[in-house]
């Protein structure tokens, strides 16, 4: 006898346990990223801070009377040289000849005729040759066996007209890229039971695969108007986006 509440509790514990290692790894990664970025930030910011402190200290030290012969004034020399070297190095960068980048005016919209003219000049997309799928011996046997079964199921569907079986066959054909068959069986299934979401979706998807996108859209619109199906709406949106590009 199943103790559902206990089983749900055990499942929750298992889920937490199984997620815990991933969460721990994720936490370690996040912490290390934060630490690393913090250290890097500190490294870059501490250098100017140190120099500024030094400068501050220098400022704070009692300023001696400026004298050329004074030894303290010599302390400034390296920084002067540094400045000179900096200033000396800049022309090197500037001396590199740079080619002016041609400014291309961005056309916000093109007239349709112009777009078509442009697309005409674009070479057609060469589709890569379809590599025939080499099936292993075992796989091909499996397919034969399954094909035998599907005929048997089709016979059963003829006799009992069970919409669930019709949907199963339609889905099977769709999965095996037999889109004409999946279209036919989805159509038959819809005829028997017009409220099966998945059957309508397979029907529309098969139409798309057969190159009849408009018909698929119309079918979906019709079905949505009758059923208000969210799945159908989602698929119609996807289709509209995909084929309006």
């Amino acid at each position, binding site marked *: 006898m199943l103790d559902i509440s206990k*089983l749900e509790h055990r499942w929750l514990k298992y889920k937490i346990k199984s997620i815990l290692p991933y969460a721990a790894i994720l936490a370690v990664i996040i912490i290390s990223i934060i630490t690393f970025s913090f250290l890097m930030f500190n490294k870059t910011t501490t250098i100017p801070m140190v120099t500024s402190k030094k400068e501050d200290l220098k400022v704070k030290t009692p300023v001696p009377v400026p004298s050329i012969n004074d030894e303290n004034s010599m302390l400034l020399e390296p920084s002067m040289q540094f400045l000179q070297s900096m200033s000396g190095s800049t022309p090197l960068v500037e001396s590199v000849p740079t080619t002016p980048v041609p400014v291309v005016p961005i056309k916000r919209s093109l007239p349709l005729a112009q777009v078509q003219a442009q697309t005409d000049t674009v070479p057609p997309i060469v589709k890569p040759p379809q590599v025939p799928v080499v099936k292993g011996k075992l796989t091909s046997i499996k397919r034969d066996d399954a094909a035998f*079964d599907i005929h048997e199921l089709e016979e059963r569907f003829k006799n009992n007209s069970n919409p669930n079986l019709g949907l199963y066959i339609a889905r099977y054909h769709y999965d095996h890229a037999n889109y004409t068959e999946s279209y036919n069986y989805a159509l038959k299934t819809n005829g028997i039971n017009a409220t099966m979401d998945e059957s309508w979706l397979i029907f529309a998807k098969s139409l798309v695969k057969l190159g009849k996108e408009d018909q698929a859209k119309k079918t979906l619109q019709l079905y949505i108007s009758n059923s208000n199906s969210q799945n159908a709406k989602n698929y119609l949106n996807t289709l509209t986006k995909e084929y309006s590009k």
Partner: protein
Amino acid sequence: MEPSLFSKPRDLFTDVVNPRDYVQIDSVSHMYQSLKTSVQKPLKMILLYGRPGTGKSMLLHKLHHDLSKHQKVCMIDIPIIDEDDFLRVLAQKVYSYASREALTLTRFLELSSAVNFPVIPIVLLDEAQLYSAALMEKIRLISDARALKFVITLHKTDNEDIIAKEHFQTRIWESIELQNASHEELKIYIQKKLLKANCFDVANMINEKNIKLISKLTRGNYRESNKLMFALFSLYAWYEEHNPSKIKYNSLSTKYIEMAAIHTGLINA
């Protein structure tokens, strides 16, 4: 009260070996054909081995079911460990010789020579790893005398491999190894079982992701898969009765599969 949608699928996966429930899967049916061909050959012993849950017992029962229409076939699915009992039961099953006394090997062989069959009778022994070395020696002598033909099944585990080597290596004329079901085979197995029983709506619920999870949990072990599916549909039947809003009819829930796996011990939680 309306019967649950899931009670019929649940009952399909009860852990009972019944040749009528045999589901034809390519690799298994290929093995079965080889087994049938081997049985027709003048071999004395045929070994059917594989890891637990690979369908050895089912094949043996299927063989018994199919061959018994044409020839004398005896099935001993529960091992008879006692040597005297074994020969007595065998004599009763094959030659219909009832004896309360212990039967010696010599007496058994005399009996077999006295009874003539058009085809040598076949004895199917399940779980042969449980038989003692001495009893296996007697079985070998009976098969050597061509009194009976034996088809034996053996678990293939690391330890039992040693037993297999010791007892059978030099005596077996043909051996057939059964493998665990692949992901694809398990899918066909489950779908075919459901479709055979007209459970189309439940068959439609099973998607690729579900099968992958089931296959991962059971490692292609048919027995474990049956147990898991039984527990899963029991869960669904419970939810359908007590909390139907929790059921989604477009696919099997990963949560429920995992809960069923916890219940059957496939997941240690």
